Structures are given as structure tokens and as C-alpha cells.
């Protein structure tokens, strides 16, 4: 896949970082403001997709990236499951139990385990949307040959 013009590349360099930061903001404020893991994850994936579209990438590199994103996706969702199971194993022996201290309402670090779930769901969603995008790009590259 070829990259785009210098104007697009420069603009993307300026924007991608901000998009990424905004995604992180949405994820870590998931328990306080609208949004959360899913919405933030989609924004995170958006910043990666912008970079790939603007700068282009060769086939081998795309395959490597896809392997990486699949791995991250599986690790993140496994962590979510382990967090849910931690309630069953430790805490009060209940699946999905929110056993961590709740903190004060409205603070960034509060709500027990919810921010943790949000963070890992965010990674999972970002990685899976990136995987879907990469799979489509790889499919198109393969069709050319």
C-alpha cells in the first residue's frame, strides 16, 4: 500500500497524537463521563488507522502488525476475564464482584474495578478494530497479486 502526499502526512502527524490522547481520555474517564472502553477503543484504533492510511505500509509489515494486534486483542480480553474471575477466586467468591475499594464518588480513581475493565476493554476494542482493518487491507493486497 502506498502512502499519501506530504500535506496529508504532516497533518496526520499533527492529528494522530491528539486523537490517541483523546481516546485515552475517554477510556480512563469511562466511569465518570459518557463513553468508556468501547468508544475510547474505537478512537484509539482510529489514530492507528490514520497513520497506516497516510504513510502506507508494505505487505510483510502489515502481516506483522496483524499478528501483533491479534495477540494484544487476545491478551486484553483474557485479562478482562481474569479480572472477572478474580472476584470468584479472591474477594467474596462471586463472579464479576467489584471487590476493590470504591473511593469517593466523582474522583478519577474510584469505582473499584470499573476503570480496570474499561482500560482492558479499550485495548481489546482498539486491537480488534485494527485487526479487522488490517485484514481487509491484507485481503486487498493479496488480490492484486
Amino acid at each position, binding site marked *: 500500500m502506498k502512502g499519501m502526499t506530504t500535506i496529508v502526512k504532516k497533518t496526520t502527524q499533527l492529528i494522530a497524537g491528539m486523537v490517541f490522547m483523546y481516546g485515552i481520555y475517554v477510556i480512563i474517564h469511562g466511569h465518570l463521563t459518557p463513553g468508556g472502553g468501547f468508544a475510547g477503543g474505537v478512537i484509539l484504533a482510529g489514530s492507528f488507522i490514520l497513520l497506516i492510511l497516510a504513510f502506507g505500509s508494505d505487505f510483510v509489515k502489515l502481516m506483522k502488525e496483524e*499478528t501483533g494486534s491479534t*495477540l494484544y486483542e487476545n491478551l486484553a480480553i483474557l485479562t478482562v*476475564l481474569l479480572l472477572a474471575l478474580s*472476584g*470468584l477466586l479472591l474477594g467474596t467468591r462471586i*463472579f464479576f464482584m467489584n471487590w476493590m475499594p470504591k473511593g469517593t464518588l466523582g474522583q478519577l480513581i474510584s469505582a473499584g474495578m470499573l476503570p480496570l475493565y474499561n482500560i482492558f476493554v479499550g485495548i481489546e476494542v482498539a486491537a480488534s478494530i485494527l485487526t479487522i482493518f488490517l485484514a481487509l487491507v491484507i485481503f486487498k493486497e493479496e488480490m492484486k497479486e
Partner: protein
Amino acid sequence: MNPLIPLFVAIPLAGAFLIMILGRFIKDFNKYFASLILLILLIFSIYSLITTGSKLSLYKVGGWEPVNGVPIGIYMVMDGFTVIVLCIINIVGFLSVFYSISYIKRYTAENYYYALFCLMVAGMNGVVLSGDLFNIFVFLEISVIGAYALVAFGVEKNELEATFKYQVLGGIASFIILFGIGLIYWKTKTLNIADIKASMSSGYEKSFYLFAQILILSGFGLKAAIIPFHAWLPDAHSSAPSPISAMLSGVLIKAVGIYVIIRLFFNMFAITEGMSILITTLGTLSMVIGVFLAIGQWDIKRLLAYHSISQMGYVVLSAGIGMILISRGEKPEVAALAITGGVFHLINHAAFKGLLFLNAGAIEYTIGTRDLHEMGGLSKFMPATSATSFIASMSISGIPPFNGFFSKLIIIIAAIMARFYFVALLAVIVSIITLASFLKFQRYAFYNKTDAVNERKIKEVPFPMIFSMVIMSILCVLLSLLVIPGIRELVLTPAIDILMDPSKYSSIITGN
């Protein structure tokens, strides 16, 4: 709270993701790990079957207690009927995944196969255990998305066409189900099955719920392939890899289709006579039309797939007869007998139809075709496959020592006692036609002599495949023991009790 209940969902999910991670680095990790996971689930489900009995255990996910008697969290419920379906899922699942160890070598991307298989099992366990409508929908989607991908696993023209048809019709079904759930939620302000039942007890709008009932019946009917909604099933079940066909036909249409229909119509909606007559009619139609569509087929897996429609017709029909009698309030013992027949046939069908698809897979594995014209004389070369498929064929046609006979007998007796003479006659005729079509299968596949086959080198299939088929055939014989009084009380009666009493399920859960 029983900690096993969430583990039925969590273990296969964790397994699916671990296979995707570790399967990349460790050779042969996927097949043994998937078998191990299904073996653990199998042990758990049999343990639950033994310990549950007639109690109903409730699991409040996240520990959310009800507020003013109104359930607010996600409830998972395990009762007599649930454990039966759980056992079916995990036993057939384990045998299929063990069978896959040799069978799936012909395909690439084994990691995806085992991961999707685990996801599908997780989804089905979730549907069966879930105590609220929306989670039924979510888990249903997990399991059918796994199934869509697995049907297309061969990635050739037929498979892709079948999976496309399945996805379109499955998507329509999911939409209809979600719409129905939405309507119910709008009126009752709750999603918990027991709570919906409780809120309906104080009067409800008849025509509104009739609409919701029709939506739910057509949605889950599409998933269960009851006759007007059956178009996707023959394609999907015949193009999937054979262990997956065994899972789809033996388990998936029951767990996400028939089980949910029976659970919702007996334990959630008020049973009305109109609805029960509709369900009985649909069941009778599936039973009759399915078998007539099946008899002309020459592709073994298509033949088996059409028989699935027909056999599921028996289950729906007997549940419908039970509903009619309950709604009229007459002959409760006959209603219980009809439902017993239905649930028993559900269990038996999983055993013999799973086995038949595994046999079809074994034949395809050795001679590479599914066309009955091109087979013949296989009994000499494949004695184990031949013997097990003979047992399965006799079970599905209802020949005495095998399990199919007893469940069909109970259904027919119940239909006669409920004065549905015509339905009973149809059930007998369908059973005879089933026998005819399976004699055709036996003759052309195993006994007919053809020259074309003798030229090829035919060997018996490898050990994992024989092991699964032999265990399934032993189950086919042993399951007929369930009719014996003493064993019946342990397994079938708790399930029948929870279905027979319309308010028992909700009153235990809501505590009123």
C-alpha cells in the same frame, strides 16, 4: 451460590483466547487443550446433573441483591431442565472436539477452528444458563457467530454460499428476537424471565403479548429450523466440517432454539390455547415435511440435515401437546407424559444425530465423497463405522432396544391419550419413512457392492474418530435406561416438574 455456574461460560471463553495466544507458539497445543477444556466441562456438567436434582440454584452475577424484591443484576439459573441441556452440549462437544483431532488435519488454521469451537460452546452454555432475556440474546449471538464462521471453514463455493444464507437468515432471526425482547421490556420494565412472569400474573394486555409471542416464536423458530423457517439448515449443516455438523445438528439447534422456546413458553409467557395449537401445528408440519424432503436426498449430510428438521418436529409437537393440555387444565398426567417424551427425544436426538454426522464425516474422510451413489461395500473395510452407524440408524428410526424407540413410543402414547389420533398416526408414519430412508443410507453406503470403491485403498479411520463414535453409540444404547422408573426420577422428572408448573420457576427465583 454455586460457583460452577459462571465457570461453564468462563472456562471455554478463557480457553478460546488462550488457544489463540499459546497456539501460535506451541505446536499441537490447540487440539489437546481444547479437548481438555471440553473434558473439564463434561465432568462439571455430569456433576451438576447428579447434584442438582429437583433444586433450582440461582447465581447473582456481581453479587447484586434484589431491591424491594425486584431483581436488578444478571441472574444465572440452573435447574433440572438446564442441566440436561448442559450435559448434551458438553458431552457432544467433547466427543466432537476429540474427533476433530484427526479429522481437522485436512484444513489449515487449526487455531481458529478450536478457538471458534470453544466460543460456540461458551455461547451455548450461556444461553442455557442465562436467567434473563437480554443475556439469552447476547450469548445466542456469541454462539451463532462462532457457528457462521465454522460453517464457512472449508472456504469453498458451497461453504461460502451456505454460510451467507445462514448469516442472512440468522441476522433476520436475531433482529426479530431483539424486537420481541424490546416489546416485552417496554411493557414489563424488566428483562428477568422470572420477574416478567411475576409481573404478568397481575393481568396483561392479550393482543400485545400475542404479538411478542409470535415474534419470539418466529425468531427462535428460525434458529431451531422449524419448518417454515428451515431454508438455511440443509445447506449450513451439510457444508460444515463434520464434527461441526454434529455440534450444529446435535446441539446448537436445541440449545439456542428448542430450549429457549420451551423455557420461555412454559416458564415466562402465560400458556394460551391458541399459541399452543400453533406450536403443535408447526411441530407436526416439521415432522412430516422434513422427512419427505429427506427421503429423496443422495448427499448423506443433506439427508441427515433434513432428518434433523423432522426429529425436532417430534420434540416441538410433544411440547405443544403438553401446552394444549396445560392451557385447557385437563389431564395433567398426560401433559407431563407428553413433555417427558419431548425432553427425552431431545436428549436422544443429540446422541444419535451427533453420531450419524460423525459417521458421515468418517465416510467422507476415507473415500472423499458425500454422494451415496459413489459408495458401497464399506462395511467390509470400516467395521467400526459401519456398526456404529447401524446403531444410530436404528435409534433414529425407532427400533426397540435403542433409545429412539422409547422416546417416540412415549410421544405417540401421549398423543393418543390426549386424543390427538391423527397426530399419533402421522408420528408412526413418519417413523416408518425415517426407517426407509435410513435403510437406504445403510444399503448404499455399507452393503451395496460397487467396483468403483474397491479400486481405492480404504482403511478404517484413526483412533480418536473411532473412540468418539463408539462412545456415542454406547450412549445411544444406554440412554434408553432413562425410561426405567428409578433412573427416570433422577434425570427427567425434575425437568418435567419445572416445566409443568407454570409459576414454580418464577416464584422460586423472585421469592414470592
